[in-house]
């Protein structure tokens, strides 16, 4: 578990160059760290903070808002079982119970051998094939007990390596070009500061502490693009 490798650092710089303001690369960079380490390691978070010119606490505080980011190590396969309304009506809780028994861990748990982490998920948008689940965000619909049993067997036997990449790998298609039209255009001198937590610019300006934070964000244009 470490900082980004030289190759991933190159990818990180490519990602940052796509945005008018550096901080916008936050989620893509965190996904990159998770792809490399399987979770968001403290070193990875620190590295992202350095790249974005932020404190590690700001990066961690942002990451913790999002369900897909794991701040602790997880299993090789993260199994997310949807139990929301459409899947529930198709027996999702019975399916989840079966998977819990089959893996021997409750939702949130990881099997002792580190192969599976089980999660109870909110709607995954595959309701036409309810109940559904994802393994490392690859979709499996029309699930039942038997389908889970054979899926788990295939995963354990390594028969689905191509379909289901290791946890953290999200989009395996790399962007083939940088920006072509023009360098990314930021808000510029005429642009207003970005309200950080709702409200208009005036609200922000009334608060000197927030204002300095906002203007430093605005000034921090992406050098590669400028």
């Amino acid at each position, binding site marked *: 578990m470490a900082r980004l490798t030289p190759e991933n650092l190159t990818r990180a710089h490519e990602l940052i160059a796509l945005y008018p303001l550096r901080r916008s690369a936050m989620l893509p960079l965190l996904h990159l760290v998770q792809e490399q380490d399987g979770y968001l390691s403290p070193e990875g978070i620190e590295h992202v903070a350095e790249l974005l010119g932020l404190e590690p606490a700001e990066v961690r505080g942002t990451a913790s808002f999002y369900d897909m980011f794991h701040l602790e190590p997880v299993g090789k396969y993260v199994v997310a079982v949807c139990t929301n*309304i459409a899947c529930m009506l198709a027996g999702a809780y019975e399916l989840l119970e079966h998977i819990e028994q089959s893996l021997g861990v409750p939702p949130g748990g990881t099997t002792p051998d580190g192969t599976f982490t089980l999660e109870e998920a909110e709607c995954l948008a595959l309701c036409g094939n309810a109940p559904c689940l994802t393994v490392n965000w690859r979709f499996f619909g029309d699930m039942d007990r*038997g389908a889970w049993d054979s899926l788990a067997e295939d995963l354990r036997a390594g028969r689905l390596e191509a379909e289901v990449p290791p946890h953290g790998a999200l989009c395996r298609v790399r962007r083939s070009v940088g920006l072509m039209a023009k360098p990314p255009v930021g808000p510029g001198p005429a642009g207003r500061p970005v309200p950080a937590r709702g409200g208009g610019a005036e609200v922000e300006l009334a608060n000197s502490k927030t204002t300095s934070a906002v203007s430093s964000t605005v000034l921090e244009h992406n050098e590669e693009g400028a």
Partner: protein
Amino acid sequence: MTVTQAPRVVTAHFGLDRSWTLQSYLAHGGYQGLRKALGMGPEEVHQVVLAASLLGRGGAGFDAGRKWGMLRKAKPVYLVVNGDESEPATFKDHALMEADPHQLIEGALICAYAIGADQVFIYVRGEMALAQERVQAALNEAYEHGAVGRDIFGSGFSVDIVVHPGAGAYICGDETALLESLEGKRGYPRIKPPYYPAVIGLYGAPTVVNNVETLSNLPWVLLNGADAFCALGEGTSRGTKILALSGRVQRPGNYEVEFAKLTFRELIYDRSLGGGVRDGKALKAFIPGGVSSPWFGPDQLDITLANSAIAQAGSMAGSGAVTVMDEDTCAVRAAWRISRFYHRESCGQCTPCREGSGWVEKIMRRLEDGHGREADLDLVLDVCDNISPGLVWPPAQTTICPLGPSIPPSVASSIRMFRDEYLAHIREGGCPFPPDRLREHARA
């Protein structure tokens, strides 16, 4: 029973061999709408879309052309595509991005040209890994094809598109939360009015945020004209709409139908659509427009699937997600599960939603488990009333975004429609219904 045979505007390529590739897209008239748009002036394109009366397909139903017209006159201008589809039982954008990413890219480019966008971001829900791969691969192909980037098709118009992954947060489907997320922050919705994204959007610059399905309509609208589009549908609901049908029906799935021509009865029972309630059971209730909407009962099956007709009947068309419950469905359990969703997804900024969602879920859970008291019905409605005073429709808002006011409708309608069931839970000390009834599929 007849169902209108409207042309398929956005799902025409579904089911074609490798429909997500440029080769397939070009073989079926791909990028002709963009070429046509580039031959017109940006304002002319805007006029076509205005004339088409293209309502936003994300849930709020705001006129897309009018949204574009509200942009503050300043530079830069951004277009952000909302592909963060997370509303429970809504799965149309997921399908559109996986099956026809080029159509989305073409639609986004048409919009970008009309509004003079400096950059386009396609925010794809994090969990949709395949959609991200398909959209990114399509974008790579589109760059190579000269459809995006510098001097598009030799027109002199240049714009870049960036595919941006979300990371798992329902709230980011709210357009201002989505912008915060795209700025690399927690997805906290912004207060509006006064500042809508058209005035203060991404990085404070004027920004259009449009839904995937909305933009996917544009290639067809440009190619066939506003009149052809308006010939479909009725009133303010023009064109077609993808209805995402789920729950206890024979044939759940996405169905593109002419807007405002179909009744719920047809959608649920027609053999070419839902095919009726599963296993010949009786229909108990249905959710007409996503889990934020008040439920309808069997006596409301003949309401037309149009924004205005549904609103008149006291609910909403929302994102077009219809979920069917049959006679064996426990209404308490269904309402509890929906309240649990809001509790998990509340971003925590506003007290009524953050605290209220937790209390509602807790009370609903104990009612479902048979540990409730009759007084709990009034109690849970009182908590709901604190989140959205009056429990009226459309709901009153005490919070920054609509998530809070979305909590009460399912709870309130289930109590109004199925009070007896609640009382049975209390009387019997448990849920009188069978479990979820997982159907074992026959597999080869």
